[in-house]
């Protein structure tokens, strides 16, 4: 703090005068762009892999983790069966009426609704009862539903979402995350071995018998839950006309017995 009264202000003026002639800090924005850091996370952008398709499979982890819920996403699942959506509804004009109606208690038709066959919900209710509707135990609930129905029906997923209050995308996210949970009824596969000594032992005729028994053709998709495929590698040590059900070789398969066996198998899986 000097004692000549005007000196401080004079020095300040000198500094501003000097800064008057120094190069300026402004960047003429549209013409010269600021150099943004490589690691800058300010840009929300979808990532594409080298083939050009989106590397996102709508698992909703980012949308759920976002603290300010600014990520609004929706998408069809890989087999294009149904549309799931996560995000604040109010931000979009067309949905504003829907959320207003929901808040006022009136039923709201689900615009992204895709028809799915209704199922008997009682087993799902019991499972939820046992887990006292706690969305925290989503994985055990889904495993028990899969055990009860053989697969995860969409109606069951929607019902679990409704009843436990967990957002549908959370249920969907958990279901798709684990390998052993699947959305389709597990199709049982019958495989017929076509190697030379099996053909000599008559596996060709057995295959035809199984075809009309099951009403499907070799290599076609599952019909009534059973699919007939060709076994590529003969299981070592198995009998020569080899037929496997879900990978397990069936003992002493004869041409006549094969048709009856196939029909009983078809009836069993439909139940």
């Amino acid at each position: 703090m000097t004692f000549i009264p005007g000196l401080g202000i004079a020095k300040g003026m000198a500094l501003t005068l000097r800064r008057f002639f120094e190069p300026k800090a402004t960047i003429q924005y549209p013409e010269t762009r600021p150099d943004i850091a490589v690691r800058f996370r300010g840009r929300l952008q979808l990532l594409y892999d080298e083939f050009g398709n989106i590397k996102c499979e709508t698992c909703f982890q980012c949308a759920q983790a976002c603290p300010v819920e600014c990520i609004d996403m929706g998408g069809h699942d890989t087999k294009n069966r149904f549309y799931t959506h996560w995000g604040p509804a109010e931000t979009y004009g067309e949905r504003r009426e829907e959320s207003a109606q929901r808040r006022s208690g009136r039923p709201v038709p689900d615009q992204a609704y895709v028809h799915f066959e209704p199922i008997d919900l009682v087993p799902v209710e019991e499972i939820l009862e046992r887990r006292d509707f706690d969305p925290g135990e989503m994985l055990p609930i889904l495993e028990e539903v899969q055990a009860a129905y053989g697969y995860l029906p969409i109606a069951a997923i929607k019902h679990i979402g409704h009843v436990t209050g967990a957002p549908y995308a959370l249920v969907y996210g958990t279901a798709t995350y684990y390998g052993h949970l699947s959305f389709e009824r597990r199709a049982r596969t019958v495989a017929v071995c076509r190697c030379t000594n099996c053909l000599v032992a008559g596996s060709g005729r057995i295959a035809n018998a199984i075809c009309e028994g099951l009403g499907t053709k070799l290599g076609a998709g599952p019909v009534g839950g059973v699919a007939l495929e060709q076994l590529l590698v003969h299981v070592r040590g198995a009998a020569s006309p080899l037929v496997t059900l879900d990978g397990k070789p069936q003992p002493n398969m004869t041409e006549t017995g094969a048709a009856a066996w196939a029909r009983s198998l078809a009836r069993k899986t439909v139940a």
Partner: protein
Amino acid sequence: MTFAVRTWDRMSPTARLTAILVPLALLLAVATVIGVLVVVPATINFLGANLPLVRFGVAVVGILVLTIPTAFVLIYMELKIIARMNLRVGPNRIGPWGAAMSLVHGFKVLSKEDFAPTGADLPVFTLAPVVTFLASVMTLLVVPFAPGIFGQDFNIGLLFFFAMGGLSVLGLLMAGWASFNKYSLLGGLRSAAQIVSYEIPLTVSVVGVVILAGTMSTNSIVLAQRGSALDWFVFKQPLAALIFFIAATAEANRTPFDMTEADSEIVAGFATEYSGMRFGFFFFAEYVNVFIVSALITTVFFGGWTAPFNWPWPYNLNWLDAWSIGILWIPIAGIVLFVGTDIMAAVVRLLGGKAWTAPSAFGLGLLITGALMTAAVGLALFIAFDWVQGIFWFMAKTYVFVFIVRLDARHAAPRPGGSADGLRLEMAPARIASQPLRDGNRRDHPEPVNAR
């Protein structure tokens, strides 16, 4: 009445048009006849009788016309200079180098809706900006721009200036009081306190000059300072000049004295509730004030339009009379123009190389020769007429002071005020009085006690 209304409804649009225009035309014809025969000659000889009234009317109109461009120039200067001081670039998108910025400011202010807040005292609210603007504009009457060019040579010039300064305070007070807003009330009271308290040093500091010049008329003060720079009153009254400069900045409510609209304390002071053209008047009044303050400093202390050293000119070019201009100079100017553009175009092609196509080279050539010729003519005028020199020197000095007022304006000097300064009202609370300001030791603040 119902008959007229019914017919009016039944008439077609063209019929209605004629029904309006015909009587109007008749009226106009009669008015012009009377005017030409009776009114015009009367006014002419009346004006002929007292010419000074005409001169005053012209001066007032001239000043009113002059203020808006001055305000625009000053706004543009303020934007660019303060930006440059803050390491910014300032407006450069509108017009060349942002020159049209202040024009656009004017239009924006004009186009904005100026509403009055609920509960505002409407007549006073609308009159306040008018009073402030006119008060600061009228002071321009007194400023001597050049030997023959000035508004009105009152013999009480300086007194007129201080009176107008006082009047603008009235406008601020009216604005503060009428806006039904506590911030503007505080702003208005502060402006009154500030200008009243700075009026006294302002007036007293000028008394020395008045005694030296023998009169209060600004024109004769400048005449008294003719000769070289040493005859300027600033060298005879340096302290008065300094006091006048500081008090005048306070008079113009400029930083570091902008207590009246201290953004950080009372939002925008008296102008909080104003918007649209009403705010425009305050806005222009402030900048015209800055111009006047600088103009007055140059007039009173730095010799107005006198040249800094003994200027040998004006050198009267009597061979340059009307006749010779008509015959001799205009054709020569035309020839010079053509020849000049060709030469310049060739030079541009030579230097610029292929990039310069013929038309653009000629365009540039024309531009350069035009510029050179205007410079030459300007120089000739400058030499020939003394009022051209007068205006040049006056404007140069004034804008130097505008720059200086600007320089200390927006830089680090915060507002004096608050308890540590004289503006405090007389209620000196015990706490502050008992607070000894420790100036004893060499450094006010001892070296920081470093505790490791």
